[in-house]
């Protein structure tokens, strides 16, 4: 499936905040109620459309556990976007944001777009961090902000797509050097002649669905 751009994302944040669930909801439209601890890093992908252009998102979901930190750090450089996730029902995950941000800023390229996500917004009754606090933190550090629920899928699409929009805008503004792949951006294959297909299988629908 051809695309105009390819963006690399990483998802970071404390363990158990719902990073893997966000990815699963985005790629497979499913929710996983049990905590399946991520070991190291897992990969996922999906196609989206922005401004009438097909954009492929390649997403690396990292382990939040402290012991994997040295592994996950290897993924910062080379990513164009990062979703920094905390859990609105656990203040400690919010308190750790500064550390995460420092780590990200230190190891990533300076143009990386960071989206701050307060996840589990469906658990309003157990809320421990006010939405305003998230907004304030984002404002203070120049991040985009959104509250999501990987369970109800509320704002999940938007979180991934708005990050892509921001990157796309940066490309339009000439901020990103798209020829340097270390920035986590790749231009799609220029309409090359399609390879010969056996029998009848045509190009197929190029919808937004994942593969």
């Amino acid at each position, binding site marked *: 499936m051809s695309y105009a751009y390819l963006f690399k994302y990483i998802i970071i944040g404390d363990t158990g905040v719902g990073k893997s669930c966000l990815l699963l909801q985005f790629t497979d439209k499913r929710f996983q109620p049990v905590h399946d601890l991520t070991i*190291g890093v*897992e*990969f996922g992908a999906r196609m989206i459309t922005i401004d009438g252009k097909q954009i492929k998102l390649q997403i690396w979901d990292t382990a939040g*556990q402290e012991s994997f930190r*040295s592994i996950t750090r290897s993924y910062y450089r080379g990513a164009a976007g990062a979703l920094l996730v905390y859990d609105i029902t656990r203040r400690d995950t919010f308190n750790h944001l500064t550390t995460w941000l420092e780590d990200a800023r230190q190891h990533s390229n300076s143009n990386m777009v960071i989206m701050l996500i307060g996840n589990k917004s469906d658990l309003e009754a157990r809320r421990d961090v006010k939405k305003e606090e998230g907004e304030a933190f984002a404002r203070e550090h120049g991040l985009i902000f959104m509250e999501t629920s990987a369970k109800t899928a509320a704002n999940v699409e938007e979180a991934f797509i708005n990050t892509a929009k921001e990157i796309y805008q940066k490309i339009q503004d000439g901020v990103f050097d798209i020829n340097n792949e270390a920035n986590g951006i790749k231009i799609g294959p220029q309409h090359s002649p399609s390879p010969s297909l056996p029998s009848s*299988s045509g190009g197929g629908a190029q919808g937004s669905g994942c593969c």
Partner: protein
Amino acid sequence: MDYFRKYLSTPQGTAGQPTGVETVERLVDRVQSSTLLDDRRDAVRALKAMSKKFRLEVGTQAMDVLVQTLETDRSDSEITGYALDALCNVLSNEPLDDDDESNMPANLPGDLGAQFTEIFTKKHENVSLLLSLLEEYDFHVRWPTVKLLTILLTNKGKDLQEAILVSPMGVSKLMDLLSDSREIIRNDALLLLTQLTKGNTNLQKIVAFENAFERLLDIVRDEGNSDGGIVVEDCLLLLTTLLKNNSSNQNFFRESSYIQRLTPYFDLDSQHTHSQAGWSAQKVTNLHLMLQLVRCLVSPNTPQQQVTACQRTMFQCGLLKQLCTILMASGVPADVLTETINTVAEVIRGNLQNQEYFASVMAPSNPPRPAIVVLLMSMVNEKQPFPLRCAVLYCFQSFLYKNEVGQSQIVTTLLPTSSDANQITAGQLLCGGLFSADSLSNWFAAVAMLHAIQDNGTQKEQLLRVQLATSIGSPPVSLLQQCCNILAQGGRFQTRVGLLQLLCAWMIDSPITVAHFLANTANVPYLITQVSASDSDENESIVQGLCAFLLGITVLYNDEQNETFNKSSLRQIIEKRIGLETFTEKLSQVPKNESYTKAAKKPHVSYKQSSEVTFDYEFTRIFKALEVDALDAVSTDAGRKENKAKLANLQQHELVVNQYKDIIQEQDQRLNDLQQQFLELQSKHSMSGEEIRQLKDQVQQLKDQNSLLKVQKGAQSNPAADARKDEEIRSLQDQLEKMRLDNANKDSAIEKLKTDVTVLEARVVNSSEEDKENIVPSESEILQNTISRLQSDLQELRTSAAEKDNEISRLSVQNNEAEGQIQSLKQRLESNAETQADPAQLAKLMEEKMTLQERVKKSNEENLKLLDKFNKMEEEKNSVVSEKEGVLEELDTLKKEQEDLLVLLADQDTKIANYKKLLKENNIPVEDDDDDEDDDLDDDLDDD
């Protein structure tokens, strides 16, 4: 290091030759102490030269100094290269290619490389150092660095993988090597990356994240795909390492549309029209690896979801089509063809669209035949290579797996209605195979047929309709009965197990087949005879076990229509003629067999040799599912309970073992969890420690601030403030006092230097006079001694001059500080004066300040004078040096007159040993501790 000591205590070399230990020691010393880069470079070069022959010595004594060289002399690529080469030699376990292996110490431990590697990697910063050296572009640095890292990975893979994982950007630096324009570096980098990622999922993922797939695929393409050289092979090996058993990477590979890029690999037509020289050994290897690359994306042990998605893509991008073209092409080497068949098998397995495509492929024969038919012809042809026949069976099974349409297509070709005498069909080939004289063909055909009816009741019934004309005149026999007849004739082992497995699969879930079977009254007695026979060998016990299983199935799926052989009568016969105990035991023999366990592992038909062929994968699944039911079925109601107990007993063992396995696994898991927790706690602990420390600091700061505030508050009109000022002044005075003392010391030191210089001068004069007179060899020794003394004196002079330098700068710093303090004091006094208005005190302070300033000024002057003196000293020193040079020149002339000595002194690189020996030849007695001085002398001579 004690470990090595016993190897080091080799006896002294003959004729006073220095041992390796001594030479290495001296060289190490020189690298450490020499201030001249050229000198150090020579020494490191010498260490490199020795590092093969005296591997142990260099490794134990010089490793640190070599590493240190990498740090300090990094800007000089030559010395860095030597140090790296030396480390390579020391750490590598590769046998030397030198021919002077007879010189090698024979008693070295075999895993020396591993031991040294352990020592080297214990310091993680050593690995980081190597990684940072990769940034140097110079070939002499980058190449040996790559080699060294590869050696380390080969010796201690796990340790190094961990070290590289934690070093920031480590993998990035390694990946950057792939863009190096120098082929040799790029190629070695490929090997390095393969070693790096072997068995480490995390590193595999990081390397993939760093765009490894794209770069490797680019290289393969640019090198001409399968026509490329060993680089292509290495790229493919790395690709396979990154993808095998790593579903995250497989997903990434597919999502990035890289499968599409594999298609051209199998486009053999366009790749070489020069078909003659087409199949070099390299090309065969490359294609094998390309096929394996495809297989690791779709092999049955990868997650089903992943396999299905990859299979779909492989169809869409034409990869399957290309593979099928190779299948039908001529001139393809048999092993490539075999692997292609295996690959096609896995690309189509369980995927209806791909299976249908495969069924539609026609061979370009005359007349055109379906590819399936052509392949089956090879399977039942005993002249074909065994692995090829296995591959065909695997492919055929994969074609039929979860494919009812395909099953019906195959069975239909066996039925009388569709028989077309001129056309060879799959059915004909299978029947032919089933009853051929080749027992392996029997087995292949029987198992192939099993897959044509597996899980498909309709086809089982259809197969009952197949009638065979055996001999002219006699009535046709059903396929089922013919199988039984051959079985009863007691053919070869593989024939019988093949047929028995087919019969079992056929009758399962199919009472009508069982009824057909029981209709022939000879069949049950045959089975009874088999099961009740005493087992003679392993093979027979398998046959007996399978017969028992078949008996059980006839009871289990009995439709009770046959009066002689209904359920209860069969049970009675079994109990009477065989006995439940024997029956159970025979049945339980089957899964205990090694060939059963092996076949049960994976669908791939992977026998090493034809004699191993026994069980089919699908059959083992059937057996596992129905073993208990079959046993239950033959037990009489009374015996059922007892039987269950027995079975339980039999299975208990396995169960217990499994339980223990589970427990162990659980414990393993728990252990891991606990370790995880422990790590977390540890980090939390250290974090809390850090926090506590910070808090303590804060408390201290607050306390300080508090007391400062208190003081300030009190200072408004408080004698305490004055006291503090007094104190400050006193300390300043103390400092001044100390400076003065320092100055005095310096003076005396300078004085001493001066006298030293004078003495030196005198000596120089003396020695030059002596030199002129002495032309006899024995007296040249005296000359040498004098000169070396002179030199050491000079050295002393240099160091004390340097010390002076230091002292002077320290003094001036102190001076500055003092000035600063005075300045701030002044300011404070002024500000205090406003609020405090204590003129007397102020005046006194001012006065003191003045005196202090005065003193400082004086000390400054003194310093200047000192500097002056120092400069003079420098001059004197220089003149001494030049005088020395004069002396040395004279010595040179002297040397020219004395040939032996000339050779001795002129060659700086000649070993000191030689030097000593030569001197001895000249009857000059030499003491060992003079060596270093001799060395220095040589250096200086060459410097001139």
